[in-house]
């Protein structure tokens, strides 16, 4: 991240889902979907969902978050996205709400584990915005984050580089989730005050949790915020800069002031945004989604000495059951050959995904170790 010489190309884990970490750490006696997606649990969630979220459900989620980190270390990754995610409340047996105002479905991931998927906005009008009952208490979330990361740093800090993100999703992405992507352009024009309040609230949560993580010993903050889709930015870059730039500049400065580094994860083709991200102060950028139109090799040429490039390995085919191990090795060799000169490159999956076999990740890591040695 500092542009200093290292002996080989480091590997980065973009988060492991249940199927993958269970393969690494051993299968649980009872899969989570059996535990939670059954009629009895359903009845309890329907009746007392919000009440049981903190004492019963969130500890389970946190245990899962810790397993992700543990499995990443055991697989041999050098760095991992260390996510802690407790800003939600169970609404009923099938739905949960994020504190920020969006609704997610709890579903089976196809391997017997629970996962959650965005299902829609939780707020569709000014009245609903004012009446939303779950806006986060940033101090409380920060305190819980501090406890989680203190434990994680102690247990895994020497084994793997932890890039923390604590319950605070990207400001722009959270806004899209809360009011629905289709409505954002309209709200930006018609409900300016609410958009500004939302951004302030999200910034406060990000800032307080970032500082809590750093208090706990985390040195690298990783913020996910998908600013782009497959072929380009979601919004006009000028609008992105005006709406979210000031918050990100403050957040990144706060991390830098304490000697930390800041990585931004943004899916899709961010080609038109990279200059802006660098101007905001980011130290590293993750994803470079291979199924998008971004050109990771050109980005290396354009910005390789300003921001560390992280990712590159596809999850659409290579890191699935359908690929051959030799194909992964070939891709890793090619990526290292083209992206490692000059350093500032961490190789890894472009995203987490519930169908990623641990064996394919191991192949990727082994290949990185074999072909990623820097020549003196």
């Amino acid at each position, binding site marked *: 991240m500092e542009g200093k010489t290292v002996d080989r190309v480091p590997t980065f884990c973009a988060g492991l889902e249940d199927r993958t970490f269970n393969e690494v750490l051993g299968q649980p006696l009872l899969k989570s979907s059996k535990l939670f997606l059954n009629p009895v649990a359903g009845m309890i969630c329907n009746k007392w969902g919000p009440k049981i979220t903190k004492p019963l459900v969130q500890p389970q989620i946190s245990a899962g978050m810790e397993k992700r980190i543990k499995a990443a270390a055991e697989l041999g990754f050098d760095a991992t996205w260390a996510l802690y995610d407790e800003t939600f409340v169970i609404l009923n047996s099938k739905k949960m709400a994020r504190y920020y105002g969006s609704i997610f479905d709890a579903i089976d*991931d196809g391997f017997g584990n629970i996962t959650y998927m965005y299902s829609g906005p939780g707020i569709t009008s000014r009245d609903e915005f004012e009446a939303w009952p779950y806006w986060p208490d940033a101090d409380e979330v920060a305190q819980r984050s501090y406890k989680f990361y203190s434990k994680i740093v102690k247990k895994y800090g020497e084994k793997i580089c932890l890039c923390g993100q604590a319950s605070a999703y990207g400001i722009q992405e959270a806004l899209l989730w809360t009011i629905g992507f289709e409505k954002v352009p309209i709200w930006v024009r018609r409900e300016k005050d609410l958009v500004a309040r939302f951004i302030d609230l999200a910034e406060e949560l990000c800032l307080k949790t970032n500082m809590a993580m750093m208090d706990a010993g985390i040195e690298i903050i990783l913020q996910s915020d998908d600013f782009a889709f497959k*072929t*380009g930015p979601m*919004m006009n870059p000028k*609008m992105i800069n005006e709406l979210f730039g000031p918050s990100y500049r403050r957040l990144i400065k706060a991390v830098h002031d304490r000697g930390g580094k800041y990585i931004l994860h943004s899916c899709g083709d961010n080609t038109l945004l990279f200059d802006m991200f660098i101007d905001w102060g980011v130290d590293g950028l993750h994803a470079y989604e291979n199924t998008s139109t971004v050109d990771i090799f050109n980005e290396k040429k354009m910005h390789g000495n300003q921001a560390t490039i992280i990712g590159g390995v596809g*999850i*659409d*085919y290579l890191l699935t059951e359908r690929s051959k191990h030799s194909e992964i090795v070939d891709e890793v060799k090619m990526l290292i050959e083209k992206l490692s000169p000059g350093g500032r490159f961490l190789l890894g999956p472009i995203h987490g995904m*519930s*169908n990623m076999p641990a064996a394919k990740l191991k192949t990727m890591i082994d290949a990185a170790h074999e072909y990623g040695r820097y020549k003196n």
Partner: protein
Amino acid sequence: MNMVDIKTKKVDQQELLMEKSIQSVITAIDEFDFDNITTIVQNCLDEGIDPLQIIQKGISKGLDIVGEKFDSGEYFLADLVMAGEIVNEVMPLLKENMNPGQSGQKGKIIMATVEGDIHEIGKNIVCMLLDANGYEVIDLGVDVTTEKILEKAKETGAHVIGLSCLLSTTIDGIKNLVESLEKEGIKNEVKVIIGGACTSEGLKTEMGADAYAETAIDAVKIVKNFTESGIAV
């Protein structure tokens, strides 16, 4: 000036007025004039302009311009959505004023997000644009089974099926549908277009679909190509 000249001049003036009104619809869409689009369209109707003409010459043209600007990088996805929302705002008014059977003349399109996937933003944008372009859109929603899509395709005689797929865990939905269409012997009658984050030209070939749309605008172009060239009608 004789009577014929006067009549011709009147017709010319009327046409000019209509063109001007239609142009204001195009401009309203291109400039995202959410606040005035309803009044503009209502004025067109009051002037006696056929709703279908407003759609074909005004709305479709406006969307084409937004689409071109999106393709050239001048406009972004949010702008495309904004244009779609503006069109959504006035489509009920236009449909209200149409004769029965005027709507959806260009072709029937089934849209669905594959089984196991509940992402819908991309699909909804495509639905919105197809509807605004005069297609009859049958939106089956998200997490749709192959059986349901197949049943609907047979029931409606749809010309095109658009499948959205964001997660690589759910791509079997594409293959299953293509195989089912083949098994039912209707693969040649209905075209399958795929789109979404995990899809690609390679996946299209691997799964046996007919086309891959990288963007919502591409999807509309492909549908137009299939229907206008007679490939899917």
